[in-house]
């Protein structure tokens, strides 16, 4: 079977295993995995920008913020989103994220590479400032408290049910993004990442491509925010602070940029170290920092590149031992 097919099967198998096994673990593990899945939608949306279009953004938390605050404000002020209209809020969160990205994209996409990094940082910080200052709307630094999870036939207060709902959103997001990447649109994004000038010469409107993927990433960021608001039950400026955007970027690279699924692996590693390991040892920060540094140094493709590296290493071993080896390093 083609390596691509194998990868898909492995991913599907792992996801199925997660869906089946996790609900039988402890409630804390269920909670953390739910958080991983919700946050990884944001990380995967960042990967669309970073891994596939070559745009490293330090402001993606802003879109999570839009989705999260929208959810919280609608729930507490207008009693909206806690019943069947939860699904409406999902859509509104995605639209909110997309709209903000549409506005920010106009400014940000004028820059490239490191300047793009800077401008997205600045825009993200503006959102943080707004969340902090606009007390009447956002509750300022007190944040907004969501007392209940939605109930529509099923009560999402049940951690297992909520896990399944978030898992569902995650799986669908992954599917949509994967389809996008494999589409002609997605392929031209990769072309832009590789050599934008050539794409322009070939007649592609590269700016429009970048703008569209920026908006799509924003939409998924908003979705992530809606789910994130319900996992913790509190939305505050902490959700849109700079370190949240940095986290997302680091998770994407840790898992492996350009792989989509690397996002959830990166998110899983980081959140487990931060939220689970921290209950066991108090020097977990060094573990996290160490993992970042080692992966960046020795695994340029992130954790997802380990199978590839192993294959190469084994192939090199085979050659070194002199035996004829017709296995090509898998593509």
């Amino acid at each position, binding site marked *: 079977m083609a390596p691509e097919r194998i990868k898909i099967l492995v991913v599907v198998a792992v996801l199925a295993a997660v869906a089946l096994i996790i609900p039988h*673990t402890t*409630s804390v593990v269920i909670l953390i995995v739910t958080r991983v899945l919700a946050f990884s939608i944001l990380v995967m949306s960042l990967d669309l920008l970073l891994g596939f279009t070559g745009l490293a953004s330090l402001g993606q938390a802003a879109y999570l913020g839009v989705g999260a605050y929208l959810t919280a404000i609608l729930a507490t002020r207008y009693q909206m989103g806690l019943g069947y209209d939860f699904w409406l809020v999902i859509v509104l969160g995605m639209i909110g994220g997309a709209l903000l990205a549409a506005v920010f994209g106009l400014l940000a996409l004028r820059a490239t590479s490191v300047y793009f990094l800077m401008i997205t940082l600045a825009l993200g910080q503006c959102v943080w400032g707004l969340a902090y200052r606009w007390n009447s709307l956002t509750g300022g630094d007190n944040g907004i408290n969501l007392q209940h999870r939605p109930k529509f036939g099923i009560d999402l207060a049940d951690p297992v049910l909520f896990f399944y709902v978030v898992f569902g959103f995650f799986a669908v997001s992954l599917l949509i993004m994967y389809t996008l990447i494999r589409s002609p649109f997605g392929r031209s994004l990769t072309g832009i990442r590789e050599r934008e000038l050539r794409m322009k010469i070939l007649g592609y409107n590269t700016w429009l491509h970048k703008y569209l993927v920026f908006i799509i990433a924003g939409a998924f960021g908003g979705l992530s925010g809606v789910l*994130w608001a319900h996992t*913790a*039950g509190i939305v*505050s400026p*902490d959700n849109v602070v700079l370190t949240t955007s940095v986290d997302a970027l680091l998770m994407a690279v840790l898992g492996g940029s350009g792989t989509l699924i690397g996002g959830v692996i990166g998110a899983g590693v980081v959140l487990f170290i931060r939220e689970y390991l*921290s*209950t066991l040892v108090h020097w977990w920060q060094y573990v996290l920092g160490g993992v970042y540094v080692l992966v960046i140094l020795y695994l340029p493709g992130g954790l997802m590149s380990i199978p590839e590296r192993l294959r190469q290493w084994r192939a090199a071993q085979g050659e070194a031992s002199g035996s004829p080896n017709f296995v090509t390093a898998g593509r």
Partner: protein
Amino acid sequence: MASNLVKRLCLPPLAAGLLSAVYVGPAAAQQQELHIGLIAPVTGIFAQVGADMLNGFKMYLEQTNSTFAGTKVVAIIEDSQGKPDLAVTKAKKLILEDHVEIIVGGVLATEGYALAPVSTAEKTVYISSVTAADDLTQRQLNNFPYFVRTSWTSSQPNHPLGQWACEQGFKKVAAIAADYAFGYESLGGFQKAFEDCGGKIIQKIWPPIGTKDFGPYIPTIKADADAVYSLMVGPMTLQFPKQLRQSGYTKPIIGGSVSYDEASLPFMGDEVIGDVSAEQYSAAIQTPANETFVKNYRAKYGKVPSYFSESNYTTAMMIDDVMKETGGKWLGSEAFIAKLVALKVDAPRGPVSLDDMRNPLQNIYIKKVEKTKLFGYDKPELWDVVVKTYPAVSQFWTYGKDAFLKQPVYSRDFPPCKYCE
């Protein structure tokens, strides 16, 4: 760390964690152990606050050999890293996996607002030993039947301070307070009491949290103010008085609570001598109970205790006192809270009891910074010497609960700045 704290040292591999069955902890009813979950920031920018909190609690545990009325106390510390959603995750872990009977902690207002609903959902006692957000024990209290506060509300010490300032003869005060809810509630309390007594707040300046350079703000302070009310937090507490004095400003500073708390005072310079503030605690309280507390704490941890430490020490003491009443038995969350609310203790900060909204009724001390020798220490140091004590101050001051709750929570615009020039 003290040996009588149990932390999970086993490191179950992730695979095992995924495949293991649901953890079953000891049944809560017939156990001779009391499990207390302590949630505080151990890492991150609030780590020192977390350290102070935990040290206070731990000191009481060590003094009682971790035994409250014959029952062994197992304290489990979880790092909230200053993030409210992580505090929620840790709280759930403590409640659902470690089966703690009580959760203590939380620092920021967001953590308080995040943990309180968890306590309601899980029917577990949550004692906030630091979080000062006013509304948690005011208009929002009915949402949180398992929530008790042993610390304070932001406005609580500022009401008597406002009255005191007026009695001292200050007529016009310019206020500068950190631009966030704690700042609004602190200044709000001061303004209400000060203006009700006849004073006038003529200016409100709101530097963003984290401001270090007050250069833009200091020259705008109105010249006809008799004094400046300042509410500074964290590193701001060190820089503001220094920069204000260097700019040639000689009028008095009236500080809100944390502006001169012992968390910052030892690191300040002599420019703060004479500055006044108000809080429910001062390390300079001249009672035998406090002197013992301060000396023990300092000997153990190398610095004078701040209100973070005292509050957690007293919380441990209060839990112990309730356990003494029940003969060491855990009778359930509701029974515990009923007994806790009826308690009166002699804490290092003085007599403390809880009002009917589960917030402390306690002394508020008006304190002035002096360089002096106290408690037998051989060097003159900066201390918040008490100049006046207002006994049994409630979160509602003299306004009465119903009248107070009718007004909106203190915010940037409430009380309105009627006399602002």
